[in-house]
């Protein structure tokens, strides 16, 4: 994921799932859907704005050891 990629990896596990999905070539269907997918992302934005983006600040899952 974007943020993990900025970080120098110390283990093989971090962000590796993302590497895998990135290396895959998008199928025809994925390309076709990408426009719709973008539209979906905008729909998501509308819902977040309606709720207020600070909503989530009450529910941050912090990492433990």
């Amino acid at each position, binding site marked *: *994921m974007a943020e993990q990629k900025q970080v120098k990896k110390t283990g093989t596990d971090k962000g590796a799932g993302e590497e895998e999905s990135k290396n895959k070539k998008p199928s025809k269907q994925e390309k076709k859907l990408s426009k719709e997918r973008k539209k979906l992302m905008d729909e998501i934005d509308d819902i977040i704005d309606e709720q207020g983006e600070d909503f989530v600040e009450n529910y941050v899952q912090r990492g433990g050891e």
Partner: protein
Amino acid sequence: MKDRIMGGEIEWIGSFRNNASCQWQEAGTPFDKIRGFLQKKYTYRYCNLTDLFLPNGCRFYHEPTGNHVESTTPECGNAREVLIYEKWQEHFMCQLSEELNCELGEFVFQKKNSDDNLASSRGSHESYLSDKMFNDLLYTAQLNLTATPSTMDPRLNYLILFLITRQIFTGSGGTIIYISDASRNAYEISPRSHFIEQIFSSASTGSRPIINIREEPLADPDKYRRNHFILGDANMADLSIFLKFGTTSAVLEMIEEGICDETLNLLNPSEAVVLFKDISRDLTLKNVPIRLVDGKYYSVIEIQKRFCQNFKRYIDYSGQGGEKLEIAQRWREILKCLQRDDEKVYRQLDYKIKFRLLNDYMRTKGLPLSDKRVRNVDLNYHNPDPEKSFYYLLKNHPHSKFESLVSESEILESGGLPPENRAKLRAYLRSLLEELNISYSMYWGYILFKPVSLLSTTYGEKRLDLPEPHLSSFDSLNFESNYDAIHYLNSLKPGAIIIKLHHSPLIPQEAAHGRAETG
């Protein structure tokens, strides 16, 4: 136990604001109003407790420790039933927030493990009625809290290994934020793993365990133990919920039936908690080697495959089909798909669906994982409202290939009625008490009520024990111990409770034996 009763609890994130210009606050606080609203809706006039058993046997209440609203399924006879009632609860919470929104302000509920600024977490707990053999097994564990290979029973080792590895299909996925070290921020398989600190403990808050050793069967303690697991995530995806309950019950059944693959044991069980967390961080499912008693290392998928193979062999041998066969098949199939990172997993398992969703969102919007909008996506994935839920936005999309394991009509119709077991009996008894204007307190395993004429709070209180979760008939009520309560209710309404005397009251042992066999 081949006919296990099981069920799930959901601790809801609840948020409330008076109107759009006000700040959001925890929704636990206005619970009195929620309860009053529900009591009116269901015309419960005589229920003393804040807990409410809804007409279909689901229970809804306020959990004071974490100040959140919590709901449970009724006693369910299989994993599919759990899925139906869990989905019914999602509908219920949506409807509740809609109805409350008109009356009180704006409510939002989300089904997600998370911690908040008060550092309280919410769980998605599972209960499995089990053979009382677990009493001895867990009693021994309690004595040997330091888990070494020589002191841990292989059956418990087997169960622990299963529980820490099942997350590859039960994980909800989630963003984990480290305030002090942002470089560690990550997306993980099982956010709940951050709250698990011990192998065995009786705590459900504080130092939470992989295996809870609290003994509270909520049923006949001479026959049953309840295995209560608090290490699971809150799921939205049908398959994650179905397999979570189905496979866990399967492994418990094998242990009860004396089948335990002792090669499926951790070489060093004291590493279980660390492994549980490491597996959660490894999205490749390949990079956390798990060392078993043979000294060799295995991947999490290899281990789960062996559990699945054991179960298939067991049901073939014991001649069981039906849902158990479906569980074995779906389990096998999803492990295969996970191994090759097949497209199917991105529409069947929560942590895979959400992983792709967050990645797409981050890429489209150019935002990092820690951005609050990205965390909003994570949180609202778990909203039960189809209009606002990012899980349902994907699932209900015209091009979606998400598979539903239960239909909407099953959820609303079957889910609206209590299952054919103790839940149905409880529903009958509640309507009887309401009809007779008797105030009562209702629990899973018993009901307390007070004769109408007595004013004192406890004097003369009568108790009806409901020790048998499998049965809906009056025959499951022990006639001798419940005589006083039954006699009183029948004096107010003749024939309200009829017990056939050729059952347990005359020859208790034989009758009990017969029940266990026909179950």
